């Protein structure tokens, strides 16, 4: 009885919230041109950043400082997961090995998934994607290995320094911009030398967007693999 009452109360609440939200959205017609700032970005993105993908140009170039904060949030979350699940001694305790299909498939596909993730973050300034989806794809490759083999662990000695170095590299690129230009995260590759102006829309263009997205991709990939690792290992007692 309580459950029925609770459910009907929940549905009434939902109807009120839904009506209120729909009322607000009715004043925002779908599919109309309402761009204000976006128009400026679209018109100037090629000349100012050298990238053809306006979304990644905004994320890395126009709002690069925001993205640095975003990377910091991700780092804090990964540190938080590590701290919450910290134990004196941790090991894989999974008992059932993955099936033959999963084991063979993961061994076969692992290098290709890594390659696809790398492709996504290297081509961030040209195609949809960028550092964050590319890093997530790389972490998926390691997750599949964790699922397939009971005793697999990521190479901690490689991943933890790589994560820190990639994060520091981002700040370093920004500081080089501060030294050459006038402000933090100044696009020194594009603004000072116009490198890649001849091949817009090809791989070697886009100023520092591919550099920063490579660093972000490495950082996100190692960080998410670390989160997977701290969730899938358990405490062992002697």
């Amino acid at each position: 009885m309580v459950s029925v009452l609770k459910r009907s109360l929940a549905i009434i609440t939902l109807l009120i919230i839904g009506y209120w939200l729909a009322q607000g959205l009715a004043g925002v017609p779908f599919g109309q041109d309402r761009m204000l700032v976006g128009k400026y970005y679209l018109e100037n993105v090629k000349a100012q950043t050298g990238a053809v993908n306006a979304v990644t140009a905004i994320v890395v170039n126009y709002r690069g400082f925001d993205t640095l904060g975003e990377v910091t949030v991700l780092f804090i979350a990964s540190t938080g997961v590590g701290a919450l699940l910290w134990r004196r001694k941790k090991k894989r305790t999974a008992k059932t090995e993955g099936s033959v299909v999963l084991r063979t498939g993961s061994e076969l596909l692992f290098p290709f998934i890594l390659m696809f993730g790398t492709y996504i973050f290297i081509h961030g300034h040209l195609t949809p994607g960028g550092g964050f989806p590319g890093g997530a794809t790389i972490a998926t490759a390691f997750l599949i290995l964790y699922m397939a083999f009971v005793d697999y662990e990521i190479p901690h000695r490689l991943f933890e320094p790589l994560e820190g170095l990639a994060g520091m590299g981002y700040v370093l690129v920004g500081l080089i911009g501060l030294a050459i230009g006038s402000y933090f995260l100044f696009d020194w590759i594009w603004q000072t030398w116009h490198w890649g102006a001849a091949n817009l829309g090809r791989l070697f263009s886009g100023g520092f967007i591919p550099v920063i997205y490579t660093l972000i991709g490495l950082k996100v990939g190692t960080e998410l693999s670390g989160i997977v690792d701290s969730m899938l290992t358990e405490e062992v007692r002697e």
Partner: protein
Amino acid sequence: MSVPHIGLYYFGALSLVLVGIYGVLVKKNLLKILISLSIVETGVNLLLISVGYITGRSAPILSEGIGPKQAVDPIPQALVLTAIVIGVATTAMALSVAITLYEKYGTLNIEEIRRLRG
């Protein structure tokens, strides 16, 4: 009280948000509540993307035949890219809190956890 007219995409995004809120209100398992929160987040992301859509235009990647006049608003997409990453981070945090709770209490039912706390 008239029924407001909204587009199909808005309707889909709003339904995802409402389904998620229903799960948060009714479900008792902590994992199900976290999944519901993820569904709410997906709905909000979809809503932001569809607010930025302009009928008949293409993705904001400038290439042959797609100039600044043929592309949709890039700003909501950049914001959603950020929101997805932050969503992943917060979900991971919440899941690790759930793991710790399960290790301590041996259950994920929030009512039992509340009773055992005392």
